[in-house]
């Protein structure tokens, strides 16, 4: 781990200014992913801005009936929030399917969205990785790909996004609120927050340098029955092979997002129109450009069957 200077931010605006002005600065909140990566020098900030003291840990209703979730709301607290459990249970379920209680006690809402891939080649500095070191190549392409993405990938990178929470956020049409160094704020649809790797897999989000996520905003509750179905090898504390976030209305229509199969939460609003009539068509639409290897081709069948299972869960929950 590289030596770094450290400060505790006292205001959001000041934090954003410092992040833009101090060379090599990074924000740290929960630290559960950043510190992990700093220990193996995949992240090597020269300066850390600890934002934990900022007033960004509230969950509040929005005027239009939605929910504004502060960036520093811990995963545990978000999952335990009565409003989330009542009105957005897919989010509570996704949160609880992720990581471990200890990690959820530290991990924050914004940090969860910004966590980096768990590709084992990314994590091994002795292996080629275009995400870690642009232009070095991708060892995973010729290697073990069972945990990797099958859609949205490129010849440069096949890493999957590891978050469960983000998949639920995506199905809920979440937006992130940010502040930039000049004090300006903006909202970014979650669909637009993460980039696909293309030729530049090291560029993972559309945030500007120093731009700080301050909140995630959920629109008014979508109603319907919520299911988050995560499929993994062991029963807990493991990353998804495939996950399905489903919000299903009584008429069978609804929304679907997939996790574990793409570099970002994977949803296709056009494809999901077929949910009531032909759920497999939804998966076929989502995975139409899938590029698989013998290691991970099973994810196509698994995604179909997991959606079937999620729909069955939703039906029986009514």
């Amino acid at each position: 781990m590289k030596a770094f200077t450290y400060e505790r931010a006292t205001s959001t605006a000041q934090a954003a200014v410092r992040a833009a002005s101090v060379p090599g600065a990074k924000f740290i909140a929960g630290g559960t992913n950043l510190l992990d990566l700093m220990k193996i020098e995949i992240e090597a900030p020269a300066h850390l801005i600890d934002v934990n003291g900022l007033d960004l840990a509230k969950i509040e209703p929005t005027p239009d009936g939605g929910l504004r979730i502060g960036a520093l709301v811990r995963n545990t607290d978000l999952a335990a929030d009565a409003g989330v459990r009542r009105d957005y249970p897919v989010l509570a379920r996704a949160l609880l399917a992720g990581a471990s209680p200890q990690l959820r006690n530290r991990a924050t809402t914004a940090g969860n969205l910004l966590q980096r891939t768990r590709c084992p080649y990314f994590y091994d500095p002795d292996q080629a990785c275009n995400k870690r070191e642009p232009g070095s190549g991708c060892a995973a392409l010729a290697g073990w790909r069972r945990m990797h993405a099958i859609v949205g990938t490129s010849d440069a990178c096949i890493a999957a996004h590891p978050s469960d929470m983000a998949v639920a956020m995506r199905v809920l049409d979440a937006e992130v609120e940010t502040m930039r160094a000049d004090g300006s704020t903006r909202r970014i649809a979650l669909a637009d927050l993460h980039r696909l790797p293309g030729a530049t897999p090291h560029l993972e989000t559309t945030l500007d340098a120093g731009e700080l996520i301050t909140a995630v905003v959920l629109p008014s509750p979508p109603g319907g029955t919520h299911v988050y179905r995560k499929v993994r090898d062991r029963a807990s504390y493991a990353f998804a092979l495939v996950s399905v976030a489903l919000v299903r209305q009584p008429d069978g229509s609804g929304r679907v997002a997939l996790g574990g199969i793409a570099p970002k939460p994977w949803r296709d609003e056009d494809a999901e129109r077929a949910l009531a009539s032909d759920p497999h068509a939804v998966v076929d639409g989502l995975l139409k450009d899938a590029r698989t290897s013998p290691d991970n081709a099973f994810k196509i069948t698994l995604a179909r069957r997991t959606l079937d299972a999620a729909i069955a869960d939703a039906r029986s929950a009514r």
Partner: protein
Amino acid sequence: MKFDTPATKNPIDRLAVVGHPVDRIDGPLKTTGTARYAYEHHDAVARPAYGYVLGAGIAKGSIHSMDLAAAKAAPGVLAIVTADNAGPLGKGDKNTATLLGGPTIEHYHQAIALVVAETFEQARWAARRIRVDYGPVDGTFDLARAKESASKPASGKPDTAVGDFGNAFAAAPVQLDATYTTPDQSHAMMEPHASTALWDGDTLVIWTSNQMVAWGVADVAKTLGIPKEKVHLMSPFIGGGFGGKLFVRADAVLAALGARAAKRPVKVALPRPLMFNNTTHRPATIQRIRIGATREGRITAIAHESWSGDLPGGKPETAVDQTRLLYAGANRMTAMRLAVLDLAEANAMRAPGEAPGMMALEIAIDEMAEKLGIDPVQFRIANDTQVDPEHPERPFSKRRLVDCLAIGAEKFGWKARNPHPAGTRDGRWLVGFGVAAAFRNNLVTRSGARVRLGKDGVVTVETDMTDIGTGSYTIIAQTAAEMMGVPLHRVVVRLGDSDYPVSSGSGGQWGGNSSTAGVYAACTKLREAVATKLGLPPDADFADGRVRAGSRDVAVADAARNGELVAEDHMEYGDLDKRYQQSTFGAHFVEVRVDAATGETRVKRMLAVCAAGRILNPKTARSQVIGAMTMGVGAALSEHLVVDRYAGFFVNHDLAGYEVPVHADIPHLDVVFLDETDPMSSPMKAKGVAELGICGVAAAIANAIHHATGVRVRDYPVTLDKLIDRLPLLAREEES
């Protein structure tokens, strides 16, 4: 003391302390965090410097050059050890690859440097500043591809044959010929390999996490080129081993070298992501099994062939061994072949040989029973043997496999099993029952101890035996208490120090029986000394803190009133293990649920019935078995060191990628010990149990998955991707 005739009645048979489920005597230390492990001896080592290991970034080849300049200049750096500057190093007898690589690199993450600095943070930073120019060469990493080039291993018994397997198999009306694979697996113990070393003049004082103190002393001495007498090695607490800490590893050698270079005590722990490729692992196997039987279900021919790989000079995984002994059959053969693979060193992991061997054999037996239309419990019972099938004149010392199966079937409710696979459903779950036999040989090993009777009447046992979680502290205390007739709290046990008499160490499930037998020998001597001191006959009775003979009744402590009494002895063994086949037996019963949609398997309940001689402490023995069953669940469902066949290393080299079971994977586990003593094994009449518990578990689960789904998977682990295309259609698919 020599054990060369079957045990008769002896002081242990009193069972006043031995055989009782007493709490571990080291429990208060472990539960309060005050048991000190190898990296934690702040009390004895005031200002240690920190060593950080750099592992090789290629699988095979050589180091052209190492540029240490930036690392040397990094803040706080005290010393850097490389093969270039370490001076001549030997190789331990128990090591296959050298522990400090360079210029030759034998495997990925082989240690190539140690950076010693004032702090851990500084050492970690500086280690990554070392620039290495490698000359990589092509290696062989894929067992399946190397199989054809595999040769007869130099050690062990690569080939066995009895009768005429070929003709008998060809003539058998019912045949099975199937090939199974087991993957590379990692011990993944919770405490990383760690050592703290300092030099006291020319004597190396080292705390290291090691199962075998005397082996450790010998190999540290040999590697460093110093006399064994100049190594003081201590290993009082070990955070798990499972065979991965049988041998001296890089942390110990590099801590010693680092301490010499820095002229400071140095401590080194292997970073977790380095452990999987740096240390040893259970090697992958390919196993072909052929069984021929009569239509009535009598095995007439059985063959087991296994292929595994290791570095040059390595050894095979002896996966065929149990097949020589487990089932009857007049015509039999086994063969082992060893390929050269340039992966990290293959070596022992919990029940080496039997664990992967039973993973294959016990699926094969299940498949054969299915072909025959015979219940798999009954098929196993029908093919039991009470003698060594290769040497029918040689009986088993005790063999209650049939009891294990029958009692287990009764307790588990086996008769409720639907005879038809894929026939039982509970909501979203496909339900299956599975069974497998458990089998592991019993090994006995010379073991010594020293016992002191203090003026205060406290009995102190000293032996270099280790407690890797097995309960050694406790069963040794029970043994000494029983022998000396004192209550448990009047016994102090000191372990894991090379100043103490050499013991069996912990491995191969020999430790419990062998080390307590050594304590038995020393206590026998101490009893004689006490009796002599008190003027009592040698057959005096020791109980309740008293020594009694005839009308005399004296406090045992009186014997030490004028000074401590000390006795030292060891137990060594005659040929009872040659005249009698000594093995341990069991049966595993499992109910699994497989998600009908996704193929996820969850274990619902498990039962193990074990016949393993006298159970010295049912509480700690049960823990050994449930721990082994848990590891068996991992072997069945998730554990798989994945080989990158291009770059030549285990890809999933951390605890996120290598999935061992977590709490949510493990239900309440049931264990039954049959009431048994084995007078052929030792005066303790005990045998091993810690490895028996894993043998067969994975197969029982694989068989249960087959029973639940109708899908037979012969390649471990049985992950959902191997099931998903063959699962029954879902209800809504059937509708449409």
